[in-house]
């Protein structure tokens, strides 16, 4: 299982800003190891963010997203104490969900 994400969610006025730092290799499938063998691709394919059961962001990623991906976005609504859930799924089928409390 992958390491937990770091999620920060802050509400200012009526807008909540969410920042996520995920821990993932994001291997492109283009690199070769010392023996000249291609290192197979391993990257996050989809990311979903939900707040109160409502999807606030859905993303599909390719291997061109950087290692240990960073993501930030804003949505209308959200109150202190609400939970924001972030889920990612990678191309090996691994997944991880973490939650943060809006501050």
């Amino acid at each position, binding site marked *: 299982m992958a390491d937990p994400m770091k999620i920060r969610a802050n509400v200012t006025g009526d807008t909540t800003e969410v920042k996520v730092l995920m821990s993932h290799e994001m291997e492109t499938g283009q690199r070769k190891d010392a023996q000249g063998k291609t290192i197979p691709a391993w990257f996050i394919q989809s990311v979903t963010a939900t707040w109160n059961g*409502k999807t606030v962001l859905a993303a*599909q990623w390719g291997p061109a997203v*950087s*290692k240990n991906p960073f993501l930030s976005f804003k949505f209308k609504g959200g109150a202190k104490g609400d939970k924001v859930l972030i889920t990612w799924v990678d191309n090996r*089928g691994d997944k991880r969900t973490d939650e943060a409390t809006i501050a």
Partner: protein
Amino acid sequence: MDAERMDRGRRAVLKQGGGATLLALVAAAGWLRPEVAGAQAQAQAWNKAAFDTHNMAETMQALGGGEPTQSKDIVFFQTPDIAENGAVVPIGITSNIPKTESIAILIEKNPNMVAAVFDIPPGTEPSVTTRVKMGQSSNIYALVKADGKYYVAAKDVKVTLGGCGG
């Protein structure tokens, strides 16, 4: 969510091969915690065709759109003119086009053009920030889908140290 989104999801699933569809079904039906199951079912299956393209025409075909219109309402922020390290290039894109449905980051000279596609549901600001890898200096395109139409803006980013290959 509204009917159009669901429809789009279904079409994306239909377009793909059996393997990918099965994976999507398993992901939607299986082993998820109940509170995330809904969101997961809504997330579109990964659009392999779109992430396999090498130029703008192919990308637009895979995404099912026509020729995108140049737009000045798409703004890059936090995006450098010169990136020292191609492995980590911050990209921020804001769309000021009403009814923005999705924002895609396309890198012209990467092995595969599409880096990321963000679906923006109503209520979410059409503005995302992330970091991408760039193999070499290239144009970055922000492709925005708004009200069923595609719009595009470009920014040239120079890379002094490539992020692909080893």
